[in-house]
């Protein structure tokens, strides 16, 4: 079984040495070659990733590397993980042919991978289920998480309720206001929501606070990170828990279209977990084009969150990746209408996939995302999350580049109920 192979890690023979200075970039891959297996044993994707953390956390991260690789090859862990995915999360999620959207745009056939149908309304729970099973297995008794829009916070609070574990979620005080409904959901689920009041009072600062909590309570606490970011092994581990998305697409496409691979994949990218989950099982398949869509907020000349498009390599929250920063290396404020994409960093694997040219990164503005919400709602009867709407917004341009018999799969990463407050002020 595809999902039962051990997490992809290069062995000791890897030639990756240390993090080169930021000016050093990996050379683009030659055409038709397969990307090397990533990350290496130190968690590096080319020059990106790694562990930039206080020494206090080193033993905990080593324990996590070991705990995760042991669990992933343990049939009992796999059985429980997949049982929960099917009986609790509601997997497999549907692959929906978007016939009216396809007709409206007049290009390639569009399918939607329906992560919005997961319990709690987004893909995030694939990862929190995996991590809480790991936390319990490793004997940790307390869970912490960071959240931006609140989707990861809700997904964490949900699995903590299911597993009877105490849960503290850090959330920027600004985000607590714009996503009040999710704050109430987390509290109802029994989690404590602690406001992050420093800096920009958004996801970046909530992550700082969660790391400070972890540094303080590392002996009994498991930190459930919500995206493919953070120090090794988080980018690899979170990717592995989301690969179920792309793996399901493979078999569903076989059934629907008698083919294993689509012509293109499209997903929004904030930290980048839903995109990696969809892309990862297809990375070796050079015929599949991949597009990540970042939030360009007010526009690329205004406030935005287009980290890969306009950022530069740097270090934030434990890893080297692209980063929005000023001339002094201070982290810049991101902006997006979508709280889930409002982050100045991005997962290190995306940084690598951008430099290697394997994935093309596009952008969509706040306004285009709102148009995307309307488009999907009125053609398919699916109200997408504002994050997801960025991927939808890229479709009018993208579909025209493909023939009518070609297939594009869009990750419909979350549903839009949580955003009705924001959306209603614009409609």
């Amino acid at each position, binding site marked *: 079984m595809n999902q039962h192979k051990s997490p992809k890690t290069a062995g000791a023979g890897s030639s990756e*040495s*240390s*993090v*080169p*200075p*930021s000016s050093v970039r990996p050379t683009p891959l030659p055409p038709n070659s397969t990307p090397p297996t990533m990350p290496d044993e130190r968690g590096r994707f080319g020059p990106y990733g790694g*562990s*930039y*953390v*206080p*020494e*206090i*956390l*080193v*033993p*905990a991260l080593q324990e996590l590397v070991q705990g995760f690789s042991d669990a992933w090859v343990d049939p009992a862990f796999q059985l429980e993980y997949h049982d929960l995915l099917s009986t609790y999360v509601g997997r497999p999620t549907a692959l929906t042919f978007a016939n009216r959207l396809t007709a409206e745009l007049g290009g390639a056939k569009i399918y939607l991978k329906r992560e919005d149908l997961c319990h709690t309304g987004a893909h995030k729970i694939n990862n929190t289920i995996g991590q809480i099973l790991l936390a319990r297995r490793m004997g940790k008794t307390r869970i912490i998480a960071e959240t931006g829009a609140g989707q990861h916070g809700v997904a964490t609070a949900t699995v903590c309720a299911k597993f009877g574990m105490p849960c503290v979620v850090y959330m920027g005080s600004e985000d607590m206001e714009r996503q009040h409904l999710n704050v109430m959901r987390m509290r109802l689920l029994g989690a404590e929501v602690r406001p992050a009041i*420093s*800096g920009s009072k958004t996801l*970046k*600062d909530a992550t*700082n606070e969660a*790391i*400070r909590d972890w*540094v*303080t*309570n*590392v*002996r009994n606490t498991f930190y459930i990170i919500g995206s493919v970011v953070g120090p090794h092994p988080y980018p690899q581990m979170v990717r592995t828990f989301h690969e179920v998305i792309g793996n399901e697409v493979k078999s569903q496409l076989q059934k629907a279209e008698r083919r294993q691979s689509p012509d293109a994949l499209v997903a929004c990218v904030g930290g980048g977990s839903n995109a990696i989950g969809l892309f990862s099982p297809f990375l070796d398949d050079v015929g599949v084009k991949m597009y990540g869509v970042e939030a360009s907020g007010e526009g690329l000349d205004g406030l935005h969150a287009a980290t890969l498009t306009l950022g*530069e*390599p*740097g*270090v*934030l*929250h*434990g890893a*080297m990746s692209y*980063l929005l*920063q000023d*001339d*002094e*290396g*201070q*982290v810049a404020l991101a902006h997006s209408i979508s709280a889930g994409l409002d982050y100045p960093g991005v997962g290190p694997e995306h940084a690598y996939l951008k430099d290697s040219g394997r994935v093309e990164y596009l952008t969509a503005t706040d306004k285009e995302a709102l148009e995307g919400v309307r488009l999907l709602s009125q053609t398919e009867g699916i109200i997408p999350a504002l994050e997801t709407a960025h991927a939808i917004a890229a479709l009018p341009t993208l579909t025209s580049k493909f023939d009518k018999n070609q297939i594009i799969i869009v990750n419909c990463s979350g549903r839009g109920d949580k955003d009705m407050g924001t959306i209603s002020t614009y409609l």
Partner: protein
Amino acid sequence: MVSRLATHIRSISANGGKALGVFVTSGFPTPSDTLSILKAIDQGGADFIELGMPFSDPLAEGLPIQHSSHVALAAGITMRQTLSLAAAFRKQSETPLVLMGYANPIVKYGISNFFRDARSSGVDGVILPDVLPELDSPFLMSARAEGVDLISLIAPTTPDIRIAQIDELSSGFVYAVSVTGVTGSDLGSKTQIQAYLERASVVISHNPLMVGFGIRTHADMVEMTLHTDGAIVGSALVRVIDTLWADQLLSSEDRLEGVKSFVHELKTGSMHV
């Protein structure tokens, strides 16, 4: 190369004393205050000074140093200014000076350029709490090439075997973080800390051992240096500066006198300079 900083700390220990390292954030409350604060710390009797390079997201810091970093950044402090302040201090004092900061501003500055400019500014060492000691790290390679100490940290969670490896890679001293926590944390159970520091002092053979995080008073310093060569105080001074500079009735001389007597009391247990 023999570290000037290590030699200095060892000579204090050899005479039965304990070294006091004092941290202050560069540019706090404003860039124009920093040089006179450094001089006041020096006159108060600090054995070396740590100058913090502010970062927008200082994840190892508690509230006082987070606050001072944001105030300094808002006041416009830059990496180049901090290096110039270090150079200006060096012209007036031989007291060892260490820069403390985070990886990203240095990556942005250029790692080798940073260590070159640190050396030419008379900086003795650099502490980067989010950079792990690794033999092939560009931070360590650049520091060694310039003869600047790269001071590594250990924590209560660090096993002996790793303490030994860190001791091999560190120079200047090994920085023992007293508790699992951020700067300015409460020390909690001191017997637990003593046991960890004793364990570390047995393992460490290449460097002096300094302890920091949560040390506020002379009494803390006496207690925490039973198994170490000295202690580092940061958040407590930053709080004192915050209070002194907020008091509109004080002259700038009064404020600097306040810094000096706080440092003197840390070192000697007595208020009078």
